[in-house]
């Protein structure tokens, strides 16, 4: 599996495909037997989309049955599905296939070759299902096949291609929604507020760490440990110039006044909370220790 493809095609991947693949994998995994023999069963399917000139855009995907004994896909099912999709999306062609796993394997080449009769240059989209927190990028790789000469034998091998993510408006909304998973029951106001504030907190934390990295970098540059890089400096200075443009005194006054108002409100909230706790405490002490406070009234058991 070699370095980068030289075919010159640009690939655009839609998030729907990624969601589909991950959904398929999750479903299969959760439906698997508890004492399942295969620790990580792979799932397979087809990707469909449009190829215009040198740009290949992958819009959608669907699942396929894989027969592990014969190492082949179910052809008739594939045909049926293809016809159905053709009716709805006349423009879309089968561009390739997908699977899950850590890396492309030798057996995948057989599948790849078998799909070559539908598309002479199929794509192989691979999703790595394990979550790696250190990795910042998506665990999705697109492979193409190329004829290379190895040990004197011409062979088809997989080469990695770069891709970009392309979204339609509807997809953006759904991805956004999935990213901010809200509790299923809607939650009380408190949990919603807590979720909202947690989101803000993590965003601010990330901003803080990024700024710290930049700061450290600029310091090192100033001390001369790193060679000065003007393009980066230009970017940093343009970023700084985008900071709040208003510096007048009136703004300062209004800003501080609003800040103080917010602080006062939280102070008031704490005050009320404290007063109510103290009120309950006083009631309890009166009941417990003061002999004549009740005067015949009945107390509620709080």
């Amino acid at each position, binding site marked *: 599996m070699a370095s980068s493809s030289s075919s010159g095609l640009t690939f655009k991947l839609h998030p729907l495909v990624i969601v589909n693949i991950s959904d398929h994998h999750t479903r299969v995994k959760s439906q698997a037997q508890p004492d399942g023999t295969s620790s990580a069963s792979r799932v397979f399917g087809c990707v469909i989309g449009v190829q215009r000139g040198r740009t290949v855009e992958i819009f959608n995907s669907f699942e396929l049955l894989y027969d592990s004994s014969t190492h082949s896909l179910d052809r008739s099912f594939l045909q049926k599905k293809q016809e159905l999709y053709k009716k709805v999306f006349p423009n879309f062609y089968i561009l390739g296939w997908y699977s899950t796993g850590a890396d492309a394997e030798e057996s995948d080449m057989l599948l790849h070759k078998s799909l070559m009769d539908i598309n002479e240059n199929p794509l192989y989209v691979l999703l790595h299902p394990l979550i790696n927190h250190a990795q910042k990028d998506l665990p999705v790789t697109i492979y193409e096949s190329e004829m290379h000469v190895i040990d004197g034998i011409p062979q088809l091998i997989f080469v990695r291609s770069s891709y970009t993510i392309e979204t339609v408006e509807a997809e953006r909304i759904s991805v956004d929604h999935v990213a901010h998973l809200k509790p299923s029951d809607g939650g009380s106001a408190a949990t919603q507020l807590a979720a909202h504030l947690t989101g803000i907190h993590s965003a601010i934390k990330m901003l803080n760490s990024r700024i710290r990295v930049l700061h450290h970098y600029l310091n090192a540059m100033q001390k001369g440990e790193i060679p000065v890089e003007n393009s980066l400096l230009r970017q940093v200075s343009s970023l700084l110039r985008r900071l709040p443009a208003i510096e007048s005194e009136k703004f300062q006054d209004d800003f501080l006044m609003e800040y103080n108002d917010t602080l006062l409100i939280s102070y008031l909230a704490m005050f009320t909370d404290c007063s109510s*706790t103290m009120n309950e405490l006083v009631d309890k002490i*009166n009941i417990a220790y003061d002999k004549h406070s009740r005067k015949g009234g*009945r107390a509620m058991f709080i």
Partner: protein
Amino acid sequence: MILNANSVDSLVTEIQALSSSSQDLLELHKRLKDYEDVIRSQAASFASCLTQIDPSIHSLGYLYILEACTVAPVPEAQANEFIISVVRFIDACSVEQIRLVPDKFISVCKRLHEQVINLNAPMRAVGPLLTAIRKIQASSEHLTPLHPDFLQVCLLAKCYKIGYGILEDDIYEVDQPRDFFLYCYYGGMICIGHKRFAKALELFHNVVTAPMSTMNAIAVEAYKKYILVSLIHLRQFSASFPKYTSSAAQRNLKNFSQSYIELANSYNTGNISELKAFVQANREKFENGNNLGLVNQVVSSMYKRNIQRLTQTYLTLSLEDIANTAQIDTAKEAEMHVLQMIEDGEIYATINQKDGMVRFLEDHEQYNTCEMIEHIDSSIQRIMRMSKKLKTMDESMSCDPLYLSKVGRERQRFDFDDFDNVPSKLNL
């Protein structure tokens, strides 16, 4: 046990030997407890060995011997020496050692307090007692029996500022109720001396509403001062008690301070001459309560009250009108009063001297400065700490068996939902 020079020396050597590490100290502590009676009975001869042991390293032994000397009343002639030696000890002693025997330390300090008052030199004990309090306090929220003595000494010596410094700590733990009452009472008087009437009001309020099963002379005196300070500071007085006042206080306090309540009533009418006449008539009673100075301050605060009521009605007013409505004699005096109030920050106004008009303004605090942010932030922190403490207290109160037994008894006999036999009494 017969005492001779040998046992004195042996004790000295023991103390010197066992004062190094904490296990040794515990050992020494045990042995000293055994020797206690011996030391007490022959205090005089032991006193001589005090010079041989160093108070900073051998505080525990020093303290035992010192305390034994103080059990008997100190004769006049030696009082001075005694005071000097105790002061030196308090300055030099080590904190962990004296915390092993706090009551002895406290009794020594109380002796110091007595002697100093007998000798009429309260100033000498102010510094030492402050150091003593800081050394024996478990935390700054803890009230020790030394607090009221210290405050009393400050009052007698008129060192209000130092006394006020101690009052700024919030107190959360109290050992003895009597200490608490005295602390708040003296504390209130120190605040009055320092002209911080708000804090004085708070402290007197604490005395009046503190839990007490029977009437308490300190509370009675405090209630009288509470009425007067409330009139001076808040310009009004409400005779109803908050619900956390003990029932003993609610029923009896008013009986003891009848003339003060009448003073408050006549204050509310706003008539200065009437108030003055009343004060004149009951002069003796106020003098007996040592409150005459406060009562005079009440009378002078009447002018301020009247002027303040004017700010709520008028936007601008001439000085003569102010003088007439507030029953002040001349416009010049009125101007003086208004100026004084503006300086103290009690009202916001500008005086136009050309035509003698006064304009009343709003509070111009805009709440748009960074200092205000810090101020509010520190208040929020304080209230968060207090909220945590309140919650723990509330929880511990809910588990209190006395509370649970009383509540169980008064529970409704039948639940609404089910008519099973709900037990009407919680057996604990």
